């Protein structure tokens, strides 16, 4: 994504996280302040990528009505997805949640042990490929129950 596309996307994520029944719950002016305070200099693309990953992870975590959803859809990135290029950053941000690994494990068990459909298991390649590239996930420490606030650049 170009930086202007990133900004638009991050704004839509921020709005969804600051809305209730279609109405904004924070003034729009707060958006720029939040980005600067949490993610750093707004002139740099890396700042917007951090924000995108952080907000997407929050959206995935907060809407996770069932852990299977992580495996079949929300963390199951496919090459044609808009956020595919940022899948590693999103997974990193998601893993900052204290119970993230447990959720992923539970989702995988639901699908592969308790019996998901062939359609579900076949379509879960995106997350399996993503996890395959990670080493020592089980040895992580220092996780917390709220996402890490990324330090300003």
């Amino acid at each position, binding site marked *: 994504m170009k930086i202007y596309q990133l900004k638009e996307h991050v704004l839509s994520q921020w709005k969804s996280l600051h809305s209730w029944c279609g109405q904004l719950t924070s003034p729009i002016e707060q958006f720029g302040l939040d980005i600067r305070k949490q993610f750093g200099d707004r002139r740099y693309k890396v700042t917007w990528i951090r924000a995108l990953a952080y907000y997407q992870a929050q959206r995935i975590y907060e809407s996770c009505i069932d852990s299977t959803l992580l495996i079949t859809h929300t963390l199951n990135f496919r090459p044609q997805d808009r956020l595919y290029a940022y899948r590693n950053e999103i997974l990193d941000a998601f893993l900052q949640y204290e119970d993230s690994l447990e959720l992923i494990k539970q989702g995988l068990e639901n699908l592969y042990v308790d019996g998901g459909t062939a359609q*579900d298991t076949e379509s879960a390649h995106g997350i399996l490929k993503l996890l395959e590239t990670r080493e020592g996930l089980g040895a992580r420490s220092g996780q917390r129950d709220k996402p890490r606030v990324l330090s300003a650049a």
Partner: protein
Amino acid sequence: MAQGQDSEINQESSQQLDLFRKGELANRERSTGVTIFRKFTDSIKANGGDADAIIDSITVETEELFGCSVRELYQATGGKKNDRSTLPEIVQRSYIANEALSSFELERMEGTIGGEDQQENNENIVGTVRDVSKKTRKWLPW
């Protein structure tokens, strides 16, 4: 002769039964919360929605049906977090009703929900889910 006719009729009936039973039954499964939720996500995808459309649709239906977020719903009902089968039966039943109705509406609208880009496409889908959810809410006993 009569016996021959009976035999032909029986053969024809059995072929019809084969057509209806073997052909269709093989593709049928018991509808449950899991399968209805899958139909719901399939209908979002069939209309061009991506994972963001699914995230927002779940958020929107939960807001409209229960007046809270997914996280608050689990906290308030004491369900085991992120395991839908541990939500109270009446909550699961409400989700099932709304997701079945939403998927019917999205299937009906398939091919007509457009948008200039993915964002707009997603918003149109989520708007449909919100409209259906508002209607479903009126039937719920709270």
